[in-house]
Structure formats: C-alpha cells, structure tokens
C-alpha cells in the first residue's frame, strides 16, 4: 500500500503597514506635536519651561515655542523607500528645533516638543485595532 502525504507548505506573506504609518504620521503624530506647541505642553503632557521676563517682553506673550508660527508648521512626513515613513522638521527650522530640544537654550532649558510619547503610541495602537476590526467587518 502506498501512502501519499501532501503537506501544506504555503506561507502567508507579511502584512505591509506603510500606508498605515503614513496615516499615523499625518493624522496622529504631527497634529499631536502641533497641539502641544499650541497648548504650551511638551509631548509627555508636562509644561514647557517658563520664558525669561525679558523674552516675554520682547515677544509680547509667554507662549514658549510660538513666535512666527514657522516651527509649528515645519513638521513634515514622507515615504522613505517602500517600507518606511520619516517624520522630520523642515530644514529652515531643524537647527532651531535641535537647539530648543537637544542642545538646550543658554539658560539650560529644554523644550521637549518632538518625539513619540506614551499617549501617541497608544493612539497609534488604537488606530491599528480599528483597522483590524474594519478589515474583518469588510470581509463579512
């Protein structure tokens, strides 16, 4: 008696999420960082360091990261290759962004306005959960 065994050797390809990452960059991460600048709160929800009285006098207000509005509108995102999405700051504000967040001001203040916070991560995961539920619903 001859036994023939047919093995299922089909491997499901991986799932591409680049389009989802584009959505997350455009609709979740960048608006979150921009809202932070508007509300004077860093990405972790804390307050930005207070400005010196002389700076407030010069600017005419106490909003730390708002002067011309250029920084707020400098966030951008783009596809990088076929797999990645890059969020960065336009070159005309990258230097000042680095000065404010990484190097720190002359008085040693750091303005943590750029990055991924726990809340941003949660929102990205929530978005993907909804995507899964929608894909299942559409398949019914």
């Amino acid at each position, binding site marked *: 008696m001859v036994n023939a065994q047919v093995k299922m050797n*089909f*491997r*499901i*390809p*991986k*799932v*591409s*999420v*680049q*389009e*989802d*990452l584009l959505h*997350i*960059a455009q609709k979740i*991460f960048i608006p979150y960082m921009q809202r932070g600048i508007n509300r004077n709160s*860093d*990405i*972790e929800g804390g307050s930005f360091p207070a400005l010196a009285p002389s700076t407030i006098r010069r600017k005419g207000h106490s909003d730390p990261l708002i002067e011309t509005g250029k920084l707020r509108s400098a966030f951008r995102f783009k596809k*990088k290759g*076929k*797999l*990645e*999405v*890059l*969020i*960065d*700051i336009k*070159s005309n504000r*990258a*230097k000042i*962004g*680095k000065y404010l*967040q*990484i190097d720190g001001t002359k008085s040693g203040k*750091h303005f*943590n306005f*750029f*990055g*991924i*916070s*726990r*809340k*941003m*991560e949660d929102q*990205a*995961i929530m978005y*993907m*959960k909804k*995507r*899964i*539920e929608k*894909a*299942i619903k*559409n*398949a*019914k």
Partner: protein
Amino acid sequence: MPNNEAFEGLLDREIETMRILLLAKSSRTAITLEEYVKVRTLQGTGLDVIKQDLLTDLREGGRIFGEFRNSVKATAAGSINRLRDDAEFSEIGVDLKYRWSAVLVNTCSDCLERHGTVAEWDEWEVIGLPRSGSTVCRENCKCVLLPEESTELAPIRRVKK
C-alpha cells in the same frame, strides 16, 4: 570657495537628529491587511479566529505587528532622552553596523530571510532584536547580531559540546 557638499552634509546631519523614523519592514511580497484576511478566509479560517489572531499579534508585538509596535513605541523617558541616548551611542560607536547571523538549528523562515542583513543597532531595535518576539521562533531564536566586519556570510553551525 566654500565646500557646498560639506555644508549640505553638515546640515543633513543636523536635520537627521530631529527625525522619527517609522519603520515597518516587510518582504517584497507583503500584502495588505484586507488581503491577509482574504487569504486566511480562503484557507478556511473563521473571521473571529483571524480577528483574534491579529489582535493578539498586535497586543503582543508578534510576527505581523512586531515591527509596527517597535516603530511607534514611546521611549521610557520621552523623546529627549531617546535623542540624547542616540547622541551618546554615536559617541561610543553603537552606530556600527551589525549583521543578522542565523544558526542552523530549526531556523525559522523569518530568521533565514534576515540572515546576512546588515543594519545599525537602532534599526535592529526597530526591526526586532533576536528573541524579542519579532520572528516566528520568538523567544526561542538562536540568532545573533555580529559586527558587520567580523561576520561570516554562511550561517553558523552550532554543535553539541
């Protein structure tokens, strides 16, 4: 005469420090979520099971969504520390390139696919380190990351002592 190329290089490097790279590597044959659901449905899997599998994978950072989860992960102490860490790493040379080296012990398909791939350490953190759950073999992974220069291309054969 100013060296424009050098200046652009410096500018690029500064821009590079203020960036978030959302990376979700997948093979060239990657399919959409909808196509994934369709393929599994055609294989006879129920929609409730597929949904549960996908949600579990997303929650646990498994094979399908592991890289996605790493990509959108917040850093423990916020981004400023992450960026500082990056700066410190570059000082001590953690920006060296590492090659994924698979071993010939029940090597899973993900590890075989990664074998020989070269990336910087922070890129591997996003893609998923060995035993981080980003491959089919999950925490049973026997692969190692070795500095690019000192790595042999052939998979390492482990032998019993």
